[in-house]
């Protein structure tokens, strides 16, 4: 392979990787936020993402709404779903062992997936072109506007979320709840409300991701959340779960690894390589790239 073609391929693969990674990041942001507050691996997050995509789909096809209102609608639907799921399935388990909540989350995830199949059939649906792709060429490299939008949106959300969690009162309350709910109550924090808010935000982020990705890949189906959900979770852990910029970083790294492995080694080893790199990074940084390695004080 001659050099210029190699470097061009590398450039294109980096673009591919970053755009894929920004999708992971977008989903991972909500994931990491919910985890950060209630220490729950919310396995249903990927399915809320699916739910959001369908809500957006119906808004555009049935109500014939334009893109932005549909997006807002999807986020609202997902937020409501998130709140309901938290109320019905997670709140009663507030004092239960963590792993029981995890199994419940898996249950919710299966329920959304197969309930979805029952309701909307397993057939994939296609998003109408509410937001058509435009291609930009830069000396042989191709980028499209959707990729740029997704990357920009995830960057903005990362900044906003980081600000909310670290600087605002509600954010501090979230962190207090995440550490010790009883002590948080003694500060006058309405713990249930804070958790509801957290779920609402996390779920609406998932829905935003669902709609954007639905538009980008142009196809949605009830099982669409499984793999991206898992990948986003891996991305969140890679960056340091619970840490918002970590989700962004983890997502982008995952995307780039996958693109480079597919492009220069073999796409069949793509997922294995992503997991292998995750494990190697964890061995050196046991709390992820940006995670602080706080050992319990003895």
């Amino acid at each position, binding site marked *: 392979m001659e050099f210029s073609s190699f470097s061009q391929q590398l450039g294109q693969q980096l673009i591919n990787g970053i755009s894929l990674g920004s999708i992971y990041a977008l989903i991972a942001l909500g994931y990491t936020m919910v985890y950060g507050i209630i220490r729950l691996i919310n396995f249903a997050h990927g399915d809320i993402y699916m739910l959001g995509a369908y809500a957006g789909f119906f808004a555009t096809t049935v109500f014939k709404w334009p893109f932005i209102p549909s997006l807002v609608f999807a986020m609202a639907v997902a937020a409501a779903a998130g709140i309901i799921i938290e109320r019905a399935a997670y709140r009663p*388990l507030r004092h239960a*062992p963590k*792993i029981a909540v995890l199994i*419940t989350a898996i249950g919710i995830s*299966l*329920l959304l*997936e197969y*309930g979805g199949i*029952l309701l909307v059939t397993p057939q994939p649906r296609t998003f109408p072109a509410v937001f058509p792709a435009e291609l930009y060429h830069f000396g042989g490299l191709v980028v499209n506007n959707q990729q740029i939008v997704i990357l920009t949106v995830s960057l903005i959300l990362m900044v906003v979320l980081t600000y909310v969690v670290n600087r605002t009162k509600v954010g501090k309350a979230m962190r207090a709840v995440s550490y010790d709910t009883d002590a948080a109550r003694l500060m006058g924090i309405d713990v249930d409300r804070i958790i509801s808010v957290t779920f609402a935000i996390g779920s609406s982020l998932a829905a935003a991701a669902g709609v954007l990705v639905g538009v980008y890949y142009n196809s949605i189906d009830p099982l669409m959340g499984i793999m991206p959900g898992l990948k986003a979770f891996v991305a969140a852990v890679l960056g340091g779960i619970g840490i918002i910029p970590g989700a962004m970083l983890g997502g982008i790294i995952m995307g780039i690894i996958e693109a480079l492995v597919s492009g220069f080694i073999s796409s069949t080893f793509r*997922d294995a390589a992503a997991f292998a790199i995750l494990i190697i990074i964890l061995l050196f940084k046991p709390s992820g790239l940006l995670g602080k390695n706080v050992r319990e004080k003895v």
Partner: protein
Amino acid sequence: MTILGMNAKRKTDLVSLAACLGLYAAVQAMIEFDIIGSFWLLNIILICINIILAVSLNLINGFTGQFSIGHAGFMAVGAYLSAVLTVKFQVPFILAILAGAVAAGVLGFVIGLPTLRLSGDYLAIATLGLGEIIRITILNIPYVGGASGFMGIPRYTSFTWVFWAMVFTVFVIKNLINSSHGRACISIRENEIAAEAMGVDTTRYKVLAFTIGAAFAGIAGALFSHYFYIAHPASFTFMKSFDILTMVVLGGLGSLTGSITAAILLTFVSAALAGYPEWRMVIYSLLLIALMLYRPQGLFGNKELSLKVFGKLRGGGVRGTAQDN
């Protein structure tokens, strides 16, 4: 423990053994006389395999407290290696099973050693990743059929095989748990820092539990592939690991009888719902949620079933950890 206590424990061992023999004879007779058709036989075999998987994962997750969700990967190693041995090298079945167990155990050891330094959710995602790496690696080995699966495996697995393999698994893990070595594992679950301070080599026992758990998953895998004619990567995805984890949690972390009950229950529910394909997973998931909401600590918590009676008879304390059954 008095000598009397020791005799009583031995006696319960013997009683359990007799009960197993009786159960075996009864089921085997029903198979011979065609009272149990092949559909139910298949599910009984699945139940036994699932018990092996759940009990061995409970050793890692429930007793040692290491959050592992890569069990399907070790099962895959046992399934494939044993199949290669019987199909391509005509190795006797028993040796193939043992080889599957050893290979899974060795792999568990090799990857457990570095990985178990992680804790909590980080360990969970790492083990999930390991399971997937194993699966994807198999997927890329044409020698074992790659993505198409490894076909033409003879059906050597019978009720006799799975039943006694299951009894063996439960026996080994129960006795392990009820020894000082088992207490060392449990102490890690309870408080790792205190365990170290009590002189427990936590790394050693984590790796030990992981290795033994993996080896039994290997046995389950070998039995599995030699019943279903085929070993296929799709059978060993992370969803399979979740299924096993579900059994462990539903039964109760740290309860062997719980794992056994949950394995029977969930396998049975799955089989019973086979006739309603559209609703099957919806009902299954609702059931799962309802059970977890109703008993978050699992069906039996960390207690053992049936022991109350035995426990009272011998006046022994039966709280907290696994006891003899």
